[in-house]
């Protein structure tokens, strides 16, 4: 329903879209300005080292790639009114499978690396599909269905690794997934960009995006309208599972090891935060992949900002909470109306007294 109206009013939709993105963008710009003020323009300008772009901001993007993959999947799940708490555990499982498989084999062989990655991705996708099946066919609430694997997943990852931390040597092509570069751009950024582009194309050039929003907006109405919501639900959880597995692979490749206990710890919460910062509401419906991406960059930049401005580690959690709070407040129309009320009411009082209205432009910034 919302989809059909939004299709009709394409221009209005673009405007609304920009409005949603404006506040996260302002917060991101503010964070970048703080960093540039503290460390100089070197913060933004990348330099090439070992045929790979480095520099503070490129490092942020590279490190944020796993979180972005997960947050993109999470955006789709949230659009269907769902949530996936198991992504951190699936991250650990994906990393564990790839590293454990490679540990006992010829690590320098491309074939073994490709198979390890494919195996990890396939299992992660199956786990995601299982989550989706529980939600779609067995009617288990998403938070409960995925909580099961959030609890058990790290145990499974530990069983895979036998309680140890499997390592992959620095010479294996596998680690290039996390540390290498193609055309000086780090591989994780390529991978994250490719997945982003694929998901945008999939949801915005096909009917899938509209169907997703309709399932999230009103599952019953979409079912009556003939949308096969069950298949769509399974598909988005499958995508999210595969994204989480891929994120685990990138993380493991970056470190050359897979830590079943700590790999991707709490990443599900960061992913949900990124989605919310990006303007997608947890109640389902409209979703913003670009917004999520900005949210991810905000979170990545924030962690570096805390170090750059010299705040102690104790601030890590608090600072994140403060920024999320600010973004959430800025996005709330009620809050903005409340803050702006003193200005608006004065104008409201003034305007009936002055029948010849003030020029329109002055009103525009407020509304």
């Amino acid at each position, binding site marked *: 329903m919302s989809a059909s109206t939004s299709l009709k009013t394409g221009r209005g939709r673009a405007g609304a879209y920009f409005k949603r993105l404006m506040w996260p963008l302002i917060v991101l710009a503010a964070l970048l300005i703080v960093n540039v003020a503290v460390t100089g323009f070197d913060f933004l300008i990348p330099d090439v080292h*070992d045929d790979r772009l480095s520099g503070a901001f490129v490092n942020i993007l590279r490190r944020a790639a796993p979180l972005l993959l997960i947050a993109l999947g999470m955006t789709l799940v949230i659009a269907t009114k769902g949530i996936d708490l198991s992504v951190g555990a699936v991250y650990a499982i994906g990393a564990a499978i790839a590293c454990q498989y490679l540990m006992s084999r010829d690590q320098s062989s491309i074939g073994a690396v490709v198979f390890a990655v494919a195996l990890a991705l396939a299992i992660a996708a199956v786990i995601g599909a299982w989550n989706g099946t529980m939600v779609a066919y067995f009617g288990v609430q998403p938070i409960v269905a995925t909580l099961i694997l959030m*609890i058990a997943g790290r145990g499974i990852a530990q069983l895979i690794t036998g309680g140890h931390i499997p390592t992959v040597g620095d010479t294996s092509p596998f680690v290039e997934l996390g540390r290498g570069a193609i055309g000086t751009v780090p591989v994780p950024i390529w991978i994250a960009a490719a997945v982003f582009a694929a998901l945008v194309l999939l949801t915005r050039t096909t009917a899938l995006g509209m169907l997703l929003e309709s399932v999230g907006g009103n599952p019953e109405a979409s079912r009556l309208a003939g949308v096969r919501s069950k298949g769509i639900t399974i598909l988005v959880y499958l995508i999210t599972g595969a994204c989480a597995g891929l994120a685990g692979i990138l993380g493991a490749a970056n470190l*050359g090891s897979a830590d079943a206990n700590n790999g991707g710890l709490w990443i599900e919460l960061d992913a949900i935060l990124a989605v919310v910062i990006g303007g997608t509401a947890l109640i389902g419906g409209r979703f913003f992949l670009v917004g999520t991406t900005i949210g991810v960059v905000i979170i990545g930049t924030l962690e570096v900002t805390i*170090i750059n401005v010299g705040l102690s*580690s104790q601030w890590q959690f608090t600072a994140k909470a403060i920024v999320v709070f600010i973004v959430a407040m800025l996005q709330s129309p009620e809050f903005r109306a409340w803050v702006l009320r003193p200005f608006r009411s004065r104008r409201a009082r003034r305007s009936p007294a002055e029948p010849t209205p003030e020029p329109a432009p002055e009103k525009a910034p407020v509304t």
Partner: protein
Amino acid sequence: MLKKTLAGIAAGALLLGMAACGGSDDDGGGGGSDDGLIVGFAQVGAESAWRVANSESVKASAEADERIGELKFVDAQQEQEKQIEAIRNFITQKVDVIVLAPVVETGWTDVLTEAENAGIPVILADRGIEEADEDLYVTRIGSDFIEEGRKAGTWTTEEFADNDTTRILQLEGTVGSAPANDRKTGFFEVLDSEGFSYELVDSQSGDFTAEGGKAVMETFISTHGLEDIDLLYAHNDEMGLGAIQAIEEAGYTPGVDIEIIIVDGSKAGFEAGAEGKVNYIVECNPVFGDQLMDLVVQVANGDEVEKFTAVEESAYGEGEFEAELPNRKF
């Protein structure tokens, strides 16, 4: 922590059944000391390689020790409930000594009072409990984290004795955790008391993980550069190994361009040391089974023991890594 606790709920259900079965089977047996002491050990879990090595050490020492008749080992899967249950079982089984590696510091008053009423002495292993319950255990055996920090500090003052001002980066452990606090305290206590001239350029938490260590180190490098940095002090192996990768990827040589101290002494840490990437390793020794068994016998005999028994730990410098590598248990 929450997640670990939750993980324990799932995995621990099975274990609870096992522990309960064990309890009812052995009820009649009693704690005969003719064949040696019966010891109950409530371990935290198997959450890290360090912990696994610790459990294996205790089991092996109990097996080899003739004075110990039987070790009843319970893995609590990081859950306090499981440990309390295990201790109650130990009490009904009338073990001679209870060894507890508490998951958390609080909430032990009731169950330890029960043990006291049953006349069973309690030894804490590794971690401590809140001070109010100090009377409820005989002694604690564990690592002296402050001493570990002091060892790192002492080496620093000797290694950089000729420097004007030594510029230091620090990778801290999980915020608020005892090893992170104490390793920091001990380190700077020595630097300050020696009148050593240093500047702490930056210090951040890497959460005891390789991921955290690498990410923070990358930011350190892009913010401060590495040219003027003399020393990196990492509170554990994992963070240090992550930082080494970041240093290498930035085009520097770890161990040469920047000297590195790590605490823990895992196999992976010593391998890095043997490759010349680490300059000093302070050991945090999980292999205290033999020491624990001696303590158990003393306590069972009613001997006077100190309230805290430090685990024997050493530290290793360049040239000692390769030789020590085969002895590493985790």
